[in-house]
């Protein structure tokens, strides 16, 4: 995945300012930064649902949003996007049928559904209506949908927000397993800095710009700080004179759900 001079303008405001970066395949890259810094917009640009994108953005060797990528990229939005009036299994069966249609793939679909249910540890709730689940459970259903097609790239927008520590640990173990066993590339956003330590590589964002692009260890070393959080604050302070201009716009970034 490679971005060159990537800029996104939304409603006259520049949300991402000419970003240039690349994400290594087969690794977990953390996209970290405060709320409203443009993480979700960057992710939507990668999966091809964001309008107003300029610059070059290549995903798995194709321009982002290319029809061929739709089956190869898994995307989980920040708010769970599943049908509340279907059970967990019915949700998964429908999305599986969209990914691999036809009676020919029925057995493969059933298998993918059961595996996804097990991956997110929802086997005991597989026949419950998604609307009756807790917030954390619903976001895991949403994650399970993205795991269905064994995607080569998984774009996860704050997948662990609001989950308890045990589940968060389990999900991070799952992410590492997916990267290691399936060779998939993961881009995981978070505004919680302690999750940064679990990533192979980090993109630190602020006000539509990338502050740092490095491994957690190298970041701590180069800034001489004990944690990624401290390193991030150090970088923000250092960049303060230039970043201040963007802060106001940054706060105004609309957090609501985009309407396709």
């Amino acid at each position, binding site marked *: 995945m490679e971005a060159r001079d990537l800029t996104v303008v939304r409603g006259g405001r520049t949300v991402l300012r000419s970003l240039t970066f690349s994400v290594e395949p087969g690794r977990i890259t953390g996209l970290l930064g405060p709320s409203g810094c443009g993480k979700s917009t960057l992710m939507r640009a990668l999966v*091809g*649902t964001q309008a107003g994108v300029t610059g070059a953005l290549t995903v798995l060797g194709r321009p982002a949003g290319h029809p061929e990528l739709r089956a190869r990229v898994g995307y989980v939005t920040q708010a769970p*996007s599943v049908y509340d009036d279907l059970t967990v299994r019915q949700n998964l069966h429908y999305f599986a049928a*969209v990914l691999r249609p036809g*009676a020919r793939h029925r057995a493969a679909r059933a298998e993918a559904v059961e595996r996804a249910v097990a991956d997110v540890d929802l086997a005991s709730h597989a026949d419950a209506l998604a609307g009756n689940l807790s917030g954390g459970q619903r976001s895991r259903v949403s994650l399970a949908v993205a795991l269905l097609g064994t995607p080569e790239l998984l774009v996860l927008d704050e997948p662990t927000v609001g989950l308890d520590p045990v589940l968060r640990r389990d999900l991070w173990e799952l992410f590492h397993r997916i990267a290691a066993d399936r060779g998939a590339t993961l881009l995981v956003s978070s505004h919680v800095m302690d999750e940064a330590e679990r990533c192979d590589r980090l993109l630190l964002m602020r006000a539509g710009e990338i502050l740092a692009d490095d491994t957690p260890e190298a970041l701590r070393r180069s800034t001489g700080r004990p944690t990624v959080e401290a390193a991030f604050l150090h970088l923000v302070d250092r960049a303060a004179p230039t970043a201040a201009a963007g802060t106001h716009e940054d706060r105004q970034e609309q957090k609501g759900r*985009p309407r*396709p």
Partner: protein
Amino acid sequence: MNPSRTLATAARVLRQLRHDPRTVALLLLVPVVMTGLLRYVYDGSPGTFDRIGASLLGIFPLITMFLVTSIATLRERTSGTLERLLALPLGKADLIGGYALAFGLLALVQSALTTGVALWALGLDTAGSPWLLMLVALLDALLGTALGLFVSAFAASEFQAVQFMPAVIFPQLLLCGLLVPRDRMPRALEALSDALPMSYAVDGMNQVVRHTDLTAGFVRDALVVAGCALLVLALGAATLRRRTA
């Protein structure tokens, strides 16, 4: 467009409805009860019941499918599932076709029930075949689905979506010839009613009431309703954007 994906979408929409039996019961029973009520309102003039009753058989599916589709599509937009689906290998025609198929099936059951009760229990007298009544009812349901899908793009909330019902449906209801025959309306209103699809739905129903055989007028009316439904479905497809701000 991929038939398997369209069918999967239709099955999913029907499955969602199955978890909502109250909506299904209201969809199926309210038109029957209203037709029954109408029968006793016009107890003294069976001729009027034949005319208005037949017209209503065309209007019920249009209104109910309009409401159901506009809310269902709005929910699809606001819950993020639409964005997710459009990021997957799903064609817009698959999504729209799936909805049209699922609600068309529901409309078929609804109009079979209402037409059956009207003809055999309430004594609605038609010269033509009840199958033709059901055909028009089905086309009306598709038109309602298409209109609902289209207007949901302009509604930001459920409140706005339900307000589109009086805004889009009522003018057609007033001008379709249900209250005053269209040729007895002022010239300007008659011209306006010529441009509204519900007028043709009601005209088609009345052709079946009056004529034993398939008239040219009926064929024209059915084609106009079907054509409008397809046109509005295409417009609805244009409102589904893969990339949004």
